[in-house]
């Protein structure tokens, strides 16, 4: 057993961090949300760069033109995506790349932007519809493929996360079957773990933002991070992040090598801990920022709002808790 990053994994994480900070730094993130909004909030040029970096083909076997890595590596990549708030249906497109055929190849190469929606949702809200090339619908029988143009919905004018545009859809078209129930179950498992990785990145970044502010902001003649009340808020944020990290990495390794654990526990546990870390850290980071945390210009709210979105994807808290109880 060696539950630490390998040298390759460390290099991968560092490389992706450098890529993200280079191609989607804070200025570009703020520009996208504040000034130069694009359809579906996805910048096609950036999407292509992400594809080239392997965001979508990461787990596609090398023989099929992919990077040939595993879920353990994928969570490191998606954690970095969360740290910088990369927008778009990243996880959905990544999952689609595993379907093979034209759809898989197109998703892997970044030619196709693929979204996913759960047919059981009520109300049904499709994310990023304006920019999607393919929409996958998870239903009882498996996965079906739907043309986004055939989806008639009403655009939500004021989505809570400005990076995640939504359409409210009354009913989804039939489409064509592209995956069976087992594949859908795999999508749900892998989607949960990758989304948890994004949440982990968000939770970690929020800890940094709060800690940094606590080191700079002075009140009563000293930096506020010197007050236990603030220091302990920051400490709890770190604890949540590290607990989530252990759960997410462990679930990813278990996806790659199911004998080392129990996926029925590991997957919902990872999602639950990561959702909890991201959303609660969002609240605490706001509190540490005081009045500034309530302003649009400080980034904290963008992280919190994104965390709220991810917390509803691939299983919410109550669902995960029930699933975990069922294992007892």
């Amino acid at each position, binding site marked *: 057993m060696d539950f630490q990053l390998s040298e390759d994994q460390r290099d991968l994480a560092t490389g992706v961090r450098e890529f993200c900070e280079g191609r989607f730094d804070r200025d570009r993130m703020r520009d996208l949300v504040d000034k130069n909004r694009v359809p579906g909030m996805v910048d096609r040029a950036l999407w292509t760069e992400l594809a080239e970096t392997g965001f979508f083909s990461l787990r596609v076997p090398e023989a099929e033109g992919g990077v040939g890595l595993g879920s353990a590596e994928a969570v490191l990549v998606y954690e970095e995506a969360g740290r910088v708030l990369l927008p778009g249906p990243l996880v959905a497109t990544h999952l689609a790349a595993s379907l093979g055929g034209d759809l898989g190849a197109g998703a892997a190469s970044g030619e196709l932007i693929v979204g996913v929606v759960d047919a059981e949702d009520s*109300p049904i809200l499709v994310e990023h519809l304006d920019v999607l090339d393919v929409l996958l619908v998870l239903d009882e029988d498996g996965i079906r493929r739907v043309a986004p143009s055939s989806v008639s919905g009403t655009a939500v004018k004021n989505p809570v996360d*400005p990076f995640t545009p939504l359409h409210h859809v009354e009913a989804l078209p039939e489409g064509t079957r592209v995956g069976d129930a087992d594949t859908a179950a795999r999508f749900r498992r892998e989607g949960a773990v990758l989304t948890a990785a994004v949440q982990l990145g968000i939770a970690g970044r929020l800890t940094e933002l709060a800690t940094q502010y606590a080191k700079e902001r002075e009140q009563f003649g000293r930096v506020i991070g010197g007050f236990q009340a603030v220091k302990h808020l920051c400490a709890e944020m770190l604890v949540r992040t590290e607990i989530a990290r252990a759960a997410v990495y462990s679930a990813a390794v278990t996806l790659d090598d199911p004998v080392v654990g129990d996926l029925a526990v590991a997957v919902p546990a990872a999602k639950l801990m990561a959702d909890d870390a991201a959303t609660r850290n969002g609240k605490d980071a706001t509190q540490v920022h005081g009045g500034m945390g309530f302003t649009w210009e400080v980034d904290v709210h963008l992280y919190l709002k994104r965390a*709220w979105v991810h917390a509803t994807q691939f299983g919410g808290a109550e669902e995960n808790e029930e699933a975990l109880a069922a294992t007892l």
Partner: protein
Amino acid sequence: MDLRYTEAEERFRAELRAWLDEALPKLPPKPDRNDWPGRRAYDTTWQRMLFDAGYAGLHWPVEAGGKGATPTEHLIYLEESERAGAPYVGANFVGLLHAGPTINAAGSDEQRRKYLPGILSGEDVWCQGFSEPGAGSDLASLRCRAVRDGDEYVINGSKIWTSHAEVADYCEMLVRTDPDAPKHKGITWLIVPMDTPGITIRPLETVMGTSEFAEVFFDDVRVPVGNRVGEENDGWRVTMVTLSFERGTAFVSEVVACQKLLHDLAELAKKVTRRQATAWDDVALRRELGHLTAEFEALWALTKWNVSEASRSGVPGIGGSVFKLRFSETKQKVYDLAHRLLDRAALCVEDVAGLPSGHLMDERLSSLSYTIAAGTSQIQRNIVGERILGLPKER
């Protein structure tokens, strides 16, 4: 301990209720949230209606043009107004609750004559220039300067979290007049007309994407020395005087609103389905609603306790921080619950699929500020620990 209202109080309530029934339909339609002139007009129209009906300045002393009502009458007024869906104090907040009472207590006769009537009648709107980017919880560390130049003060600096700045006539301001004095000592309280040259207003966008607040910049802004309330460098004491006007009624409307909201959320829970059943069938959610019901029952009782204490003593009790701590955290829990109840609909800050996600998520975002604004929960716990329990002060 008597929770029965006196006959006089019941009569006051009945008359108010009758008047509200009659007056509210005459109000123009509510303006859009971002229409600041419209909001000013709406709020001041309502204030004028209150004025004409004899309800303006209910809690002000009679000699200031008010009604000299008891804290209990004020509580009844706020409770009935909220239940009837009357407008909030809105643009008149600073005038009626801060600037007016301060001028009455610490101003000159001339200042009283000049400023109080306009506040009561809704003619004049006031805003507040206290907080600064560097002076939040530690308000006394404010740095906006005013330098005496003959018969004038020349103001330079900036203020933040100012509501209604764009439409206000006057600003009540705290400025530093002696930078060498200990920080609570060199502060002065000034009245600044908002049309004075040198004032720039920059809307401050909140996490809700709206501009409820502004930053206000002062660049060589000149006001006459006669606009000073109280003595030079005595502004901190003048401000503290205002605090003594709080008589336990600060959150009456909000507590009543939360109690209404809990009923609405129960209705919503009975309507929304999660997989097989309604949300109301989820005993955890139901018990959480029950728990919050208890919290607001207790907070309502504590409101009456604090108001009664103020009625007896004439000064605010020590209960304000206790109330504010629990209220703000509990109100956040209500919106956490609303968020949970809405599930994916919580991703829309507008109504979707017949669900009231617009209002609820807007307030849910707003709720992030409850434990921050007007003294963070951390500061409130310091106050409770130090001033009530007598624990040693922070070093």
